């Protein structure tokens, strides 16, 4: 069988769902961050797959994936800074315990 676009897209979907589950269902804030990275990676795979199979010569998808990577790096840095800062103040990185914005 040939590996078609669908394969890559399905792989991307599964990866994204796993990342989504991890983002919604874990206590540890760092694990949530890691899940978000997984989601971003899944999206990159989808971009590159589209670029390869639909417009191979115009590497638009790859360019987008590149930018996504840059942004992901930046966002991870800030997110970790926030987590460390919260850890300093509250001695915990349990995402469920950070609920000051409640009703």
């Amino acid at each position: 069988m040939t590996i078609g676009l669908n394969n890559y897209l399905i792989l991307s979907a599964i990866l994204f769902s796993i990342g989504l589950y991890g983002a919604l269902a874990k206590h540890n804030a760092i694990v949530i961050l890691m899940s978000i990275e997984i989601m971003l990676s899944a999206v990159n795979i989808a971009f590159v797959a589209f670029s390869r199979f639909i417009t191979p010569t115009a590497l638009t998808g790859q360019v987008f994936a590149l930018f996504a990577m840059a942004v992901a790096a930046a966002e991870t840095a800030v997110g970790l800074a926030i987590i460390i800062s919260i850890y300093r103040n509250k001695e915990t990185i349990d995402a469920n315990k950070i609920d000051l914005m409640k009703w």
Partner: protein
Amino acid sequence: MQNNFVCLIVLLPFLSFLIVSLILRPMFRKQPKIAGYVTITAVAASFILSVITLCKLIGSPDHVLKVADINWMFIQNGVNIHLGLMVNALTGIMLMVVTTVSLMVQIYSQGYMKDDAGYHRYYAWMSLFTTAMLGLVMANSLLLAFMFWELVGLCSYLLIGFWFHKPSAANAAKKAFIVTRIGDFGFLAAIILLYTHTGTFDIATLQGMAVSGALAGWVLTWAAIGIFAGAVGKSAQFPLHVWLPDAMEGPTPVSALIHAATMAAAGVFLVARTYPLFEHSATALTTVGIIGGFTAIFAASIALVQNDIKRVLAYSTISQLGYMMLGLATGGVAVGIFHLFNHAFFKALLFLGAGSINHATGTFDMREMGGLRKAMPKTFATFCIGAASLAGLWPLSGFWSKDAILSNALDKQPLLFVLVIITVFMTAFYMFRVVFMTFGGTYRGKQHLHESSPVMTIPLFILAGLAIASGWVNLNGGFNSFFGSGTTHSVLEGLFGIFKEPLPWISLILACAGIFLAYAIYSKKWISAEALGKTFAFPYKVFYNKYFVDELYEGIIVKKVLMGGLFAAARWFDSTVIDGGVNTFIIQKVIVKNFFAGLFAFDRNGVDGAVNGVAGTTLAAGKTIRKAQTGQLQFYGLIIGLGIIALIAGVFIFSRV
């Protein structure tokens, strides 16, 4: 119409009133004396004009001056009210009385009221009073007379209550006004009765109708009695006499002018003015006589035991007014008015003398006086002259007029004659009791005594001269003939011929006896006053308490009958019947109230319910939905995911991609 100058007699004092009240009081506060000068000038001018009027009257036929009148009110169906002046013999004499006494009193007041704070107010009211009295004596219609009558009453109220911050003065003013008002009610009723039956207010016309008989029967009698009721009030006859003694709360010159000489005499004047009506109604005339005679002895008996000089003089006035009424009833206008003429002068003199005494001793209570003869010789002399004139000693003025009344009373009303002859004795006694208690013996008080200043003593002298001489105008019967009755005879005939009759002798003896008794008790103390008081304890108590008339009026009539009974009934009627009726009517509005209640319920439940419901729902929704804000990030993420799935599903369901 060269007689129009008589208008000035009334207008000049009125002008002075306006000047004093509107110009002098606001702008010349610091120079109060100007008010006095203005008033005196105006009254003096009126006096001069009155003299001229009198001279003209003596000269003119029928002793009447024609003065133009003005057409005041003209209403369609025949109501035609004229206002004007009527100048006849009666008017002329009254003008003289009023202007002379007023002038003397105004001059005297310059000294008496010298440092009073209400100086302007005093002269303003005095001017107004003079205006009103002069207007009254000159009015030619009952309506105009009634207007001035009321104005006189108002001025009396204002002047009695002159020192209004004293509650006794304020109450006295109120009492005077209310009691005279009761009389005025009768007067007004009489005016209306006459108008409805004759269609006119004009006095001359009414007199003519009475004489001709066009006005007769019950109308005439009741009208005359009504007019007399007004006179009873103003002239303080029994039973409306209670205000005059209390009116002594006012300043003494006021008492002299108003309550001795003029206003009190207004009642007598009114009866004299409308005399034809009384002449032709025997009942009315008899009523006048009876009340007059009874009042004379009644008041004299009270005066016997009073300790306040002014009270004695007040009761004396009441008594003398009774004399005048009796004179009118028995002898006619000339007799009554002659006594009024004389009485005005010597009573004013006596009052002013009492004021002079008060100036020196600071009190009116005779028990704190005595021995003033040496300290105040001028006052003593003039006071004695006045007292002697009042007692009726020959040849002073009081003798002539009193004698005329006595002889007429003997002829017409023998019963009343007995009363008044006793009164002669009493009058002499109480008057000289005053003289001996005040001027005789030694001074019982503590003040520093001095004679009054000339501005006060000169009027006393003038009035004393008049008190002596005013009776002499009738020596030749001139006064009577001036009024159209009696004949003239020579002066000597009048002076000494009087003793041909026995009556003058009797009255003279009684007067001297009274004087002697007073002398015995109060000067020589041969008989002790206290012992007499104990012997006659019951009469003494009755006289001293003024026959308990005041207690009757205030305690029983006012408190029980009126306030307790009549007014309480009226109040009950108003509150129960009228207010109850209104409230019942309102209860009928319960039907309406149901309607209103329905509206009210609709508003409360429906409208407010809707508004509150909306608010409540919003709040409840908020309360519920706020629970969604848990603050937990992953919860939000979950909902976002749910939303995305829902969106995708929705897109697919509705667009069938």
